[in-house]
């Protein structure tokens, strides 16, 4: 089956948005939205379905195998990684593609996610001493280290907005890792900032559950981070 990629475009952050449709013929069963976008941009002349010449579609990618988070975008209404979105898994021929809506658009599907990293800095998320990682917490630290900072969890969060006081789920994995590796009484600053910027603002909607492209159990990390930062006890399960 051929597919039509219906892409919400904006050539600059302050320009007007418009939609443009492109025809894509898959080459293999494994073709993804990332494959399709790469092929579109490799065409000698890119034209939309009306035959109108088009500028290459700006988007970000890096690993193409769900390990880096660069290519997060909204596909058929769901935030996900373009490199993991296989075309054959879509039942409709026309696929709607949009940039993540919570972040400022740079160009087309490229959004500025720098706030993610700024927030981690504001939360003082670093080790202030040598890590102490007992075996029973190793698996939790591993899972917490898997976060790729793609922003998908924030896209669906009813409480997160860029520059808001609430920093959202993307700050939880890093917090969990660090609190797992430090005695609770030596992580007071992290705990205080977490309580202010994450715990207090989280409406516990758990909209972020099952949205993480890495399959991180967000609820588990949240429960652990809350236990360590707010209730001052380690869970580790």
């Amino acid at each position, binding site marked *: 089956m051929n597919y039509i990629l219906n892409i919400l475009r904006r050539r600059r952050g302050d320009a007007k948005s418009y939609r443009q449709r492109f025809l894509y013929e898959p080459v*293999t069963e*494994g*073709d*993804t939205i*990332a*494959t399709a976008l*790469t092929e579109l*941009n*490799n065409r*000698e002349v890119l034209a939309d379905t009306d035959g109108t010449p088009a500028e290459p579609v700006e988007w*970000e*990618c*890096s*690993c*193409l*195998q*769900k*390990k*880096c*988070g*660069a290519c997060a975008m909204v596909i058929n209404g769901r935030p996900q990684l373009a*490199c*993991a979105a296989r075309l054959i898994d879509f039942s409709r021929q026309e696929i709607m593609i949009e940039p993540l809506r919570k972040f400022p658009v*740079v160009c087309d599907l*490229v959004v*500025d*996610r*720098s706030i993610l*990293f700024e927030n*981690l*800095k504001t939360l*003082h*998320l*670093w*080790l202030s001493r*040598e*890590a102490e*990682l007992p*075996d029973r917490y*190793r*698996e939790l*630290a*591993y899972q917490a*280290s*898997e*976060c*790729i*900072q793609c922003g998908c969890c924030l896209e669906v969060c009813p409480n997160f907005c860029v520059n808001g006081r609430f920093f959202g789920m993307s700050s939880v994995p*890093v917090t969990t*890792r*660090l609190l797992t*590796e430090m005695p609770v009484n030596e992580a007071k600053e992290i705990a205080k900032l977490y309580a202010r910027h994450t715990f207090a603002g989280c409406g516990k909607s758990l909209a972020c559950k099952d949205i993480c492209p890495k*399959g991180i159990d967000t609820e588990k990390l949240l429960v652990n981070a809350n236990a360590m930062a707010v209730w001052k006890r380690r869970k580790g399960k």
Partner: protein
Amino acid sequence: MSDMKTVNIIGAGLAGLSAAITLARAGVSSNLISSQPSERAQSVLAEGGINASLNTMGEHDTTTEHFADTMKGGCFLSSERAVGGLTENAPSIVKELAALGVPFNAQNGRLLLRNFGGQKKKRTAHAKSSTGKMIMSALIDEARKYEAQGLIRRFPNHELICIDVHDNVLANVTVRDNYSRKYLRFTGAAILCTGGLNGFFEGMTTGTTQNTGSAAAIAFCAGAEFANLEFIQYHPTTVSISGKRMLISEAARGEGGRLFIMRNGKPWYFMEEKYPELGNLMPRDVVSREMTAVVSMPECTGSVMLDLTGLSADVWSGKLSDLRAEIMSYMNIDPKLSPIPVSPGIHYFMGGIRVNIRHETSVKNLYAAGEAACQYHGANRLGGNSMLGAIYGGKVAALSALETAAKASIDSVNAKAESSLPKNRTKLCCILSSGLGMIRSEQPLIKAVADLDELLKSGTLNEIDRSRTLLGKAMLLSALARKESRGAHTRSDYPHTSADFQKTTVAGMHNGEVIIRFAAIDESEGSPK
């Protein structure tokens, strides 16, 4: 801040982070410039582990043996002093990573090590099969501490577009903010940590799309010498997925995976039969060559298969759960139940910017580390040595750079740089692939050089594509000049290793021409010239 000594670092993967953290700990600030945030760097793809003779497995391992295995695996084309430094420092590096909270597999505080290719003893510390991601997460957090102190200043979304060299001394680097499209010029010393040359073989490697090789091409045309460009590692166990090759970590064989091919209707475990001592864990160059050979035998049918069905439940749950999920996701095969078809794919570039043991390039005040640089791995890199080389190399480069670091400036400038065009990248990739497959010979290499010359004369190349094509030509000419087979460089017309070629292939630009020469393996602390 403005009066502080500052070093510019291009690339924020393992080598770049290691350099930035090293500088920060010494009180020297850095500008950490990268086309995307560290979370997107190729280092997060590293899987199987990091080598260090920690000797925690009761096998009496030593740094001497790590050194000997690395030298032998690299077919004696590495600097002994450099490899000595690498292997001597490996245990303290891994201990430091553990202290930074990397959740390595461990038992009662003892780091567990696994077998890896080309090494007889268990030496590879690991965090399941996602070791690169785990190490990166810890180093990113550590770097953040210094970002908050103003010692590391990040410039994400910034791409290198120009290296300005005057009288063989680095004058400045210019970068483009790919979000604002504005240009900045950084004076002062710079460390290139820009990764391998994946972009020269687009879609054919296990690496990321961000490692375009353009930064290397810019450095080459600015006057930096390159070394050993002909040595391209084909990893034995990769699979084709949409848009790239996906790595099946060497950890799969380290934990007991076996390679076989159907011969006369029966599985033939050819590596175990031919190499009884190391079997499936021979160095990567050997395994890949053997795989290529058996596939072409008339009595053999189908692909080489990687059989992981005999691995224990504990290995799957505790050490390779991530690898299994990945294989199931992209290949729709459960490796616990069925063998998987694998074939060699481009994985690592042993060659790169020529550096001495202090990681100084041939251009004064310009340094290089990580896969961007040619150091430690000789003609063939051992699995588990890449992350080690990146972290150690980043440290060494930083320690060298801080000796001469001075106050640096950042200025907005008017500039315009064209991007590499897809059609030019595709042409270059096709030509390079025709000459630089796993098995090379003179005629295809000569033809490929002629094709590149034609492309260079065609007038269709913009500046960056021209630079890329010239570096590509240097790769071909290096392979043509090395009339022997050694490590990852196999010549069908020169099948034997020759003592005459136990030298470094050096590529440089002189008066607009690519010049290749051979130099003694550098053991000096001075300039690689």
